């Protein structure tokens, strides 16, 4: 039996009250609250109707606006149903915290590290939340850590933040 978008919405709404739905050309996006995030993700994975057993990616978007500036996006896939799904959750710029989803999918480990490295979003409970691409001491001259995919980060970087070897 094919999995319809309405089935997915039903499964998600059974565990979280506040789920808004965006459908674009048949592609479904669920926008959830941070408090409901883990419940929704666990249910989408473990419910025998949906079985979203494959986490494709986690990334974030910086909307460059006050308030809920960031949005973290989870790309899910269900191999049994050949279905795909996006789950989005807003993150307020004053509280850059989300619960980790490593317990749901082991694959979330590196994706969350990458999202932390690029946007500075802290995933509470992550077993090893270190920088992924950038050096551990990637910060400006005041000691503030830099997150390069934020919209306020200059494209060419901040001079002196990434040292070069000396030319002899």
């Amino acid at each position, binding site marked *: 039996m094919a999995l319809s978008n309405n089935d997915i919405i039903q499964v998600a709404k059974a565990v979280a009250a506040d789920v808004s739905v965006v459908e674009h050309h048949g592609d479904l996006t669920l926008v959830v609250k941070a408090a409901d995030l883990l419940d929704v993700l666990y249910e989408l994975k473990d419910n025998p109707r949906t079985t979203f057993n494959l986490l494709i990616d986690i990334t974030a978007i910086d909307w460059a606006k006050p308030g809920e500036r960031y949005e973290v996006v989870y790309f899910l896939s269900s191999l049994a149903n050949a279905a795909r799904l996006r789950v989005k959750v807003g993150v307020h710029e004053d509280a850059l915290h989300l619960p980790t989803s490593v317990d749901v999918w082991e694959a979330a480990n590196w994706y969350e590290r990458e999202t932390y490295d690029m946007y500075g979003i802290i995933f509470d409970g992550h077993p090893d939340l270190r920088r992924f*691409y*950038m*050096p551990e001491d990637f910060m400006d001259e005041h000691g503030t850590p830099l997150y*390069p995919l934020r919209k306020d*980060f*200059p*494209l*060419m*970087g*901040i001079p002196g933040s*990434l*040292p*070069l*070897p*000396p*030319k*002899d």
Partner: protein
Amino acid sequence: MGLNDQITRDGFVTTTVESLITWAQKNSLWPMPMGISCCAIEMMAFGGPRADSSRFGSERFSFSPRQADLMIVAGTVTYKMSWVVKKIWDQMPDPKWCIAMGVCTSTGGMFRSYPVVQGIDLFLPVDAYVSGCPPRPEALIKALMYIQEKVAESKPQLINLGKDSGDIRRSDLIVTP
């Protein structure tokens, strides 16, 4: 049989030790393949049978920097990688030469952004730049031939390693023509 008889029978060549050394050096440049990204595929073609860098004595890619005298930096060098490239360059014995292969290596290329070094000449002495994205193997051969000319024009310094030699510095070993 006297010396005169032997010379007239076998033939002889006169040269200087310096030109003999540069001749040997330029025809046996051992590349250190610093293949960091897509340019490395063309660098392999440069060593392969069609372009055949063994015609120039450079088929022996040295995967240990200590037996190499020509570093071909083929690919995008990020700030994080620059320390690795430099460390490998420092392990190569003098005299040594460097080719910046491709636009990324030469200038940063299309990656005009924060993590990419905008040209490896910011931290390495580059002898030849090769344009292209990626360059054809022929372009790399041209760069190799340019390095060969450069080697032929250089003067190898013959160092007395006897008791008067003292400390040898890198600057003593490099002679600019």
